[in-house]
């Protein structure tokens, strides 16, 4: 049978009726038009959190957002987007490439500096506009409760007598790694064997199971894990922390290392200074609110606020502290991707060989598909692509685009059914499209604040 593409399309009369219907819908979906000439901010601000939902940074961001919403400090919504991965560099890269218009903000702690000195990314704080520093958490060095090491000194003695035998769990390239590096650097002869473990929970598992000897935890993590058999050797502050006065500082033990992890807010390089200052003011007011103060206290985070020159000085100090260490880590791994590729190739060939041997048996696999059906798939594919492009690149309103998409796809796929029951089927498709089109708009735009 000859294939004519035309047979796939609904007839013209129905289409024109559809368009009149759609015209009625348009005012509904355009309720979110922004008036570009209003003062900053006149559209939603995206806050990129480069870690997973629920982790320390995400919780912190949500506490601040709640305070901003509560006190109505911003006329526009602050939309949190989690972009986790690779020690925060996935998210930081994303913000670095964004337009410097004040509508994209990054929340990233000291990892932005350590990542640079780990040399896996080639940029650091200098490629962003620092907005503010808010909240600091203390760090401790911890071991298993049954560990033979009673103090940081003990641990370091062993690490210098038998260098490269004392294992230290870290998230390579992140502050937990650099703390270990700074301590061995300060001590001089000690040398840890760093093991790439992961986030706080992963490091807890490794210490608890006895697979790794020591690690660094934030104070909040340490207090959470302590009842399950974790013991702190040193607190990395200038003085003992009031919450845990029993833990001696590293300085008391002769190791002059202090470390605090600060949450910084960044905007892309070149963002107008007035927008940076505006947002910094918003953060300052949010930090002063009672709800933020109590919540941070329960998380053992010191509620500091830094901006302007104080922030610049703080960043400079932090940079110097991390700059002095050499994070050289050799991967012990064989080239797994290469091995995998070769194995895949071998088994791919094995499958082909096997199929050739057994080809005479395969007779049932010839349920032929007509060219018309393939054309249908091709046209559907094009429609899906058009749908995605019009949403993401042209940013057309979701309600209208999805209604249109559902209509066209409905008519495309029902050419057979419309021959027997034309009015019923068409009516059903139209109702379905309008209902689901509005539903998508309701759920994704109103409920999830999705910004295309």
């Amino acid at each position: 049978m000859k294939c004519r593409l035309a047979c796939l399309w609904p007839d013209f009369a129905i289409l024109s009726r559809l368009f009149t219907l759609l015209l009625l819908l348009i005012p509904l979906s355009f309720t979110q038009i922004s008036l570009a000439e209003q003062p900053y901010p006149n559209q939603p601000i995206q806050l990129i959190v480069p870690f997973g939902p629920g982790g320390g940074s995400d919780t912190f961001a949500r506490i601040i957002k709640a305070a901003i919403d509560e006190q109505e400090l911003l006329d526009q919504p602050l939309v949190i987007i989690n972009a986790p991965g690779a020690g925060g560099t996935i998210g930081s890269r994303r913000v670095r490439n964004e337009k410097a218009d004040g509508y994209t903000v990054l929340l990233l702690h000291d990892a932005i500096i350590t990542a640079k000195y780990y040399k896996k990314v080639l940029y650091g704080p200098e490629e962003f506009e620092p907005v503010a520093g808010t909240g600091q958490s203390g760090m401790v060095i911890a071991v298993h409760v049954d560990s033979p090491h009673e103090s940081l000194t003990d641990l370091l003695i062993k690490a210098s007598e038998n260098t490269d035998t004392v294992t230290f769990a870290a998230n390579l390239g992140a502050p937990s790694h650099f703390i270990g590096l700074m301590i061995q650097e300060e001590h001089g002869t000690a040398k840890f064997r760093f093991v790439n473990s992961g986030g706080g929970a992963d490091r807890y598992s490794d210490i608890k199971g006895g697979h790794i000897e020591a690690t660094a935890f934030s104070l909040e993590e340490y207090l959470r894990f302590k009842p399950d058999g974790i013991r702190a050797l040193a607190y990395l502050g200038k003085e003992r922390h009031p919450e845990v006065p029993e833990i001696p500082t590293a300085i008391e033990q002769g190791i002059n290392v202090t470390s605090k992890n600060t949450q910084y807010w960044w905007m892309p390089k070149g963002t107008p200074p007035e927008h940076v200052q505006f947002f910094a003011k918003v953060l300052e007011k949010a930090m002063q609110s009672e709800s933020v103060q109590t919540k941070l206290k329960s998380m053992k985070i010191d509620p500091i606020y830094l901006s302007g020159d104080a922030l610049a000085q703080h960043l400079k100090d932090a940079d110097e502290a991390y700059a002095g260490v050499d994070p050289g880590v050799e991967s012990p791994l064989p080239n797994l991707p290469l091995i995998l590729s070769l194995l895949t190739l071998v088994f791919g060939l094995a499958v082909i060989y096997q199929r050739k041997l057994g080809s005479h048996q395969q007779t049932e696999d010839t349920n032929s598909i007509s060219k018309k059906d393939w054309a249908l798939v091709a046209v559907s594919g094009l429609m899906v692509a058009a749908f995605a492009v019009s949403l993401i690149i042209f940013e057309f309103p979701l309600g209208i685009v999805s209604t249109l998409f559902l209509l066209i796809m409905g008519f495309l796929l029902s050419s057979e059914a419309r021959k027997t029951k034309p009015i019923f089927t068409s009516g059903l498709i139209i109702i379905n499209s309008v209902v689901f089109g509005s539903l998508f708009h309701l759920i994704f735009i109103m409920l999830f604040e999705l910004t295309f």
Partner: protein
Amino acid sequence: MQELLDAFTYLTQPYPLFLLVLGTILGIVVGAMPGLTGAMLISLTVPLTFGMEGVDALILLVSMYVGSVSGGLITATLLRMPGTPASMMTTLDGYPMALAGKPGRALGLGISASAFGGIVSWFFLLLLAKPMANISTQLSPFDLFALVMTALVLIASVSGKSLAAGIFAGLLGMLFSVPGTSPIGDIRWTGGFTQLNDGFKLLPVLIGLYAISQIVQDILKIDEKGEAIPMNRTGMFMSLKDWTSQGFNLIRSSLLGTWIGLLPGIGANIGSVVAYTAAKNSSKTPEEFGNGSEEGIVASEAANNATVGGALIPLIALGIPGSVIDAILLGALMIHNVQPGPLLFKNNPLEVNVMIATVLVANIVMALFMVLFAGVLAKLMYVPRSILLPVILACCVIGSFALSNRGFDVAVMLGFGAIGYVMQRLKIPLAPFVIGFVLAPIAENNLVEGLMASGGSYLPLVTKPVSLTFLIIAAALLILTVRKHFNEK
């Protein structure tokens, strides 16, 4: 114990109960419709749960899981089309029995067996999840690496007809996990796309593989229609005599299902095949299998529901998914900041206990709903595809985008749709691909960690008892499968 009671109390509140019933019903409906699968439903639902509390999201997703494994038996019985792959074995006996004028009896047996299997596996979930989570810190990185490799061998050797194709699919899945960032932070294989720095995200990959490729198949046979056997309710409930005569079969099939579910990597499809084969081999009337055997229906359905509870055990305790749907659940747990492992019962007591409680309650809701509405559900397959498919397609696009607001994920989703379709055309199983894709990073991270801790030595892999045991099991499995393969030829 108290925490479990709290979880049940939580489930009796209106909103959680609503989500549970909604999830179960949606699962059954999707399971009952040939061409829609539970994996598709659940991966499309995950983006919708971003705005929910984690615990509510888990109620919805777990009850969908239970429902979707069960719903397939209706269409399997009345249409000889398994609504989901897990009901494949039910078609062999359910349809002949329905054809012989006993559709009510066939459905009733299937539904009761499903609920029974689900409840048996729930007991094991309750008993084993917490102790296993507690001892999981004892597993060293090398042990976990060996365990994951065993899982990969297992999935490759049992899915699909050809071992080579299974292994090939698994390797291909592993290969697609390479682009992104290596465990120690090097960017690799991204071809300059910075969006790929974090690799392919699980959700767009799964939506592509399971939803898009299925939709393409559905479009290709858009005008195909099935004819359902009219429903009657005679014999819908199992009598006391049935329970005693099927009792041993029920328990054996449920235990087998739970055990298969517990093994990392393989899920409901394999569970029902194994239980069916076991029932046939030990039956007094093996000749009835395939011609409407009651034992066959019971074995297949008890086992496929039992895998659900079993597969949740390694997921909760170790973060290692027991099946494709568990892989999606793992992703959802991460999104809602529920980290499986030793800290789970301490950090998220409500979430994990509610998950466990949901398995039990959803099985009961499932049985009630199916008994009441089996007839209506059979008519679902008459819903025109031209209504259904466009909505699902739109959800695929919006859902992939919603994951992290970038168009790149939509492109990935469509690309994997094409890959999935081609693989199905070439009869290369999808399940090892997904499991390989999910497990490869876990394996690699643990190998790196183990090697860094040992200073580059592989020796602990064979000197420590746990990892050695896993490696021996993996090798034995491989050899057995290859031998079986050659013996058949």
